[in-house]
């Protein structure tokens, strides 16, 4: 376990440096006038230009600039947006909203996909299974830019079941529709994986033993199969996080939820370069850390992984 832990953490550190380096290089390297690019199409006054040059250490060689950027990231200093607000401050306001949304989305996703996945896995090839698989195929193919506005139109504006947009401090009810939209991004894969592992575990020796001991069907499936089938679903949460982040940008933009994605959405539209870089850096870090944690958790849950 210890060796696996060390190896995986080292790998995570490497990925962290590589990924942040790429993001930073994408934004700043090799540009004739990075400051103008930051400001987008707006003209840049001289005093602002000077201040920005100093702030981003543009007179230093590239690798030193990256060093400054890394120090900022590690000490929690993510820079200042063009509207002169601290990115870390905007983040601390936005995170609670986004976390509320994400947790709600995860609950919806897990509830639906575990139930549907188990039923499909037990009755493979039955009508429920066939219908579920066709639905998952359609869900996999629906881009978030289609899903979010259409869901808003159908359930928010036409049927009026849910509020079409959320306000400054959205409550649970206002978040249900956007959370369901986000959840549908990951439901399809989760159903398919649960179904596959349930079907596989049903054939396992320990299930046969449990049945032979005369345990009830409910206990065999509820305890023995379910527990072992959920292990691969845990890893998916890590992989899905990237999808969820991408989805959150569009969903929060469409439903007007003042979370992390909404800030990024607005930053892109108003061409606020420093804001975009700051937010993207933080999201990349979150992504890497969560994936690391999930991988380690996976090794704890399933001892076979450690000895690969």
């Amino acid at each position, binding site marked *: 376990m210890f060796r696996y832990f060390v190896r995986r953490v080292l790998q995570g550190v490497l990925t962290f440096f590589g990924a942040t380096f790429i993001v930073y290089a994408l934004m700043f390297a090799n540009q004739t006038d990075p400051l103008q690019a930051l400001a987008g199409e707006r003209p840049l006054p001289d005093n602002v230009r000077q201040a920005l040059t100093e702030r981003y250490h543009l007179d230093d060689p590239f690798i030193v600039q990256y060093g400054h950027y890394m120090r900022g990231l590690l000490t929690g200093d993510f820079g200042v947006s063009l509207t002169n607000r601290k990115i870390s401050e905007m983040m601390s306001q936005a995170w609670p909203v986004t976390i509320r949304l994400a947790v709600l989305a995860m609950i919806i996703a897990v509830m639906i996909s575990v139930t549907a996945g188990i039923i499909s896995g037990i009755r493979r090839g039955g009508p429920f299974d066939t219908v579920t*698989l066709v639905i998952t195929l359609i869900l996999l193919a629906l881009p978030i830019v289609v899903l979010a506005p259409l869901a808003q139109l159908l359930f928010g504006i036409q049927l009026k079941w849910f509020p079409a947009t959320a306000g400054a401090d959205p409550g649970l009810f206002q978040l249900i529709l956007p959370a369901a939209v986000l959840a549908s991004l990951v439901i399809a894969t989760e159903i398919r994986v649960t179904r596959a592992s349930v079907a596989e575990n049903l054939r396992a020796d320990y299930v046969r033993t449990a049945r032979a001991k005369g345990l009830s069907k409910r206990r065999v499936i509820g305890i023995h199969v379910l527990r072992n089938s959920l292990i691969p679903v845990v890893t998916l949460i890590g992989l899905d996080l*990237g999808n969820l982040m991408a989805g959150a940008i569009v969903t929060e933009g469409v439903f007007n939820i003042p979370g992390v994605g909404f800030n990024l959405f607005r930053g892109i539209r108003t061409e606020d370069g420093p804001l975009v870089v700051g937010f993207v850096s933080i999201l990349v870090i979150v992504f890497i850390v969560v994936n690391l944690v999930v991988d380690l958790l996976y090794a704890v849950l399933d001892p076979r992984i450690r000895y690969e």
Partner: protein
Amino acid sequence: MSNVESVTQAETPAAATAPNGGDGGAEKPRSLASDAWRDLRRNWIFWVAAVLVVLVVVMAAFPGLFTSADPSFCQLSRQHAGPSGSAIFGYDFQGCDVYARTIYGARNSVAIGLLATLMSGAISLVIGMAAGYFGGWVDALLARGIDIVLGIPTLLAAIVLARRLSDSEDSGFLPVVLTLGVLTWTTGARIMRSSVIAAKSQDYVAAARMLGAGHARLMFRHILPNAAAPFVVVLTILLGANIATEATLTFLGVGLRGDEISWGIDISQASQFVREAPAPLVWPALFLAATVLAFIMLGDAIRDAFDPRLR
């Protein structure tokens, strides 16, 4: 955004009913490809997907076949006007014909999807082939590289990269293609690597090597054709995912822009006026979803046919 990974790893749909191919040994032995084709012909998902794909490609190549209206002719006087005989989907905020714009929008999506997938396919072919064929430290190095790229959420990197590449003057076409091409090759490279490793240890490769074939000949003449099937499947699904990501980037404002006609632009514009007029939002969205679905279903169906483990 792109669900390629999940699609390729996910279970096969039961709708692709198991083939009943083993009808006696009297028939002459068939190759994997002809076997797969037999399967495909019986799969209704394949036919639905293929018809849709052909339709979208024809739409992209010859939009004039479907509409005689000019998609860039807009009149504010007919803003949000309802459907009529000449414009069956009605008019949008600018007073442009929604049907014509939706038809013409296919071109950008298909072109970007194809070019980006070709580029990403070329990158993953080279990297996956090198990692799988040479193994050892080359493999270790490339695997770490793949890990790093996988460590960056695609859409986030695409936002930064597309912004960075695009000049405010141009239409954003090339930046989007480059962005998608550079960021989406990881799945293809991994699939290529594992199928090359599997193909490399076959006897016919050893035989060719003993006959004196060089690295290039071994790789492209002997290993590649036998490792190509899963790769092609991944690329088909990636094509659909790329079209979806393009629309998302455009929707966010870092993809296509200006006078370009594209589903992403139309969805982005119409979503602001969705309370007044839903039609300009719904139609491009449905066309986009159907196109993405078609490519993903096609890839899914081909994978099922080529995967002998499911027989």
